[in-house]
């Protein structure tokens, strides 16, 4: 067994460094700039039940230690996704590297997206990810991150509907996130993936207006890594399901730190914007680390800071 091999429930990945949804395109867009074979997996840009045009510009701006952005889940909907986008993703990534991220307004919409994906590509993907995290949707998805009952119902329905591993990605910025995670963990979900981006704002001094067309948007980048660390730390104590951390990871040291706090794998997001080849660099750093530390497996580090 390779020392970086990572198990998230029934899913097995070549390493614990994952391209986070919304920050990695559909994999194929990155092929020219990075070595995709070095990714543990890529969570593709979320596909929603209905096509979404996305939010009005401007959509991104730099803030200290990261960016503020408001994309608005822009995507062409399931028909184009399944017909045109998936074949390109399949040509760029291996079966064990593809996680399909879906979102809807109701449990039924999530389930139908999972079913359509699995009917067509079930034997060619590693998992589906239920995106209950995107902070830009005014109704629907936020609900499945903050209502424990709705979250459990959603995950249980998706798990019952498809054979592939199911990840639950949720926003930990609600006070009851541990209660929500606990409820979801009772469904036998394969992994709980955190999104920790708090909402923020930036104002243009010259125009005297908010810089974002949507006025507000989530803040991501290294600035929020300590927030993500605490959330993973607390989640590790609350649930025994494999956890995937995200929030500001951009070096191999960040990945190790998240693992020590309790993460089994780490999603790399906005760090890929300035450095599209950063994931292979992180993975090389992890390989050198296990060699240096003479570890049989990185997994022995998961939650080690609690002991």
């Amino acid at each position, binding site marked *: 067994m390779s020392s970086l091999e990572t198990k998230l429930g029934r899913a097995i990945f070549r390493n614990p460094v994952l391209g986070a949804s919304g920050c990695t*395109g559909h994999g194929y867009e990155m092929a020219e700039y990075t070595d995709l074979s070095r990714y543990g997996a890529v969570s593709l840009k979320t596909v929603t039940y209905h096509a979404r045009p996305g939010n009005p510009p401007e959509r991104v701006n730099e803030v200290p230690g990261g960016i503020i952005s408001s*994309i608005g889940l822009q995507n062409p909907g399931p028909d184009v996704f399944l017909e045109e986008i998936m074949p390109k993703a399949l040509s760029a990534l291996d079966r064990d590297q593809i996680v399909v991220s879906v979102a809807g307004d109701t449990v039924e919409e999530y389930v139908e997206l999972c079913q359509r994906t699995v009917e067509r590509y079930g034997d060619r993907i590693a998992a589906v990810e239920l995106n209950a995290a995107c902070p830009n949707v005014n109704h629907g998805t936020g609900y499945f991150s903050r209502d424990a009952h709705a979250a459990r119902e959603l995950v249980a329905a998706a798990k019952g509907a498809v054979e592939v591993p199911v990840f639950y990605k949720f926003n930990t910025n609600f006070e009851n996130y541990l209660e929500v995670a606990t409820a979801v963990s009772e469904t036998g979900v394969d992994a709980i993936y955190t999104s920790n981006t708090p909402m923020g704002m930036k104002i243009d001094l010259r125009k005297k207006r908010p810089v974002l067309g949507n006025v507000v948007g989530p803040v991501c980048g290294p600035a929020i890594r300590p927030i993500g660390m605490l959330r993973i730390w607390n989640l590790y104590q609350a649930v025994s399901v494999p956890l995937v951390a995200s929030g500001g990871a951009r070096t191999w040291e960040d990945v190790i730190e998240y693992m020590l706090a309790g993460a089994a794998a780490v999603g790399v997001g906005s760090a890929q914007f300035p450095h599209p080849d950063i994931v292979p660099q992180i993975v090389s750093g992890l390989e050198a680390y296990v060699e240096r530390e003479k570890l049989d497996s990185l997994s022995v580090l998961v939650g080690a800071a609690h002991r």
Partner: protein
Amino acid sequence: MMARLVRSCQITARDTLYEFDCPELAGKARPGQFVEVALGEGDSSFLRRPISVFDCDGESRFSLLVRTVGRGTQRMTGWEPGREVDVLGPLGNGFRWPERAGVCVLVGGGIGLAPLTYLARRLLAEGWKVRLLFSPRREDELLNALPQREELEIRCAENRAHLPEVLEELLANADCVFACGPEGMLETVARTTMERGIPCQLSMERHMACGIGICLGCAIAVHTPEGLTYKKVCKDGPVFRAEEVSFHEQP
């Protein structure tokens, strides 16, 4: 990839020209494309800075004309020759023009002059007659950065009201128009050229995070046969046909 800074030269109080040696990039760059520049160690900026290619010899050297607008570009002004700079590019789709040479008009608003210089070089080399309409808000000495000044027919428009007037004159028997600058100016150029049925391309600008089409941050509203939709300035542009760009209406 790494590009070595060969020289830098201050053009105006707030504009600096940086010349780099980087055959890998210079050999590929086309007019209208841009690069993403990392500000490097010692700088706390998270993102690269997208900057259009100002000039290029097609073999080893390219240059960037950079306006100092914030801390990142301020830091660049301290760069010494010999510095190795991490650049990504060339990125995006550049300008396109007919094979048969004719008469063209370039319209640059302020630092929007930057991507038009390399374009002028290529058009002149292919036998085009090139007219330049420059609309400086303050710094008309920005024109000093132009290497082909003598070969161009240059007109300046001092203000917003004057620009359409001069543009009308320059459009006489023009085959195509290329413009870059503030959106208000681009809208005027788009409207004027469309009324006259002269093909026009606009180099658009948005804040960008990645520059390679993965973040969907640099959205621009564009008319397509299927209706109004968002496209990416970094990957689908930054150059768009004038009739494609929706200046006000959003999807």
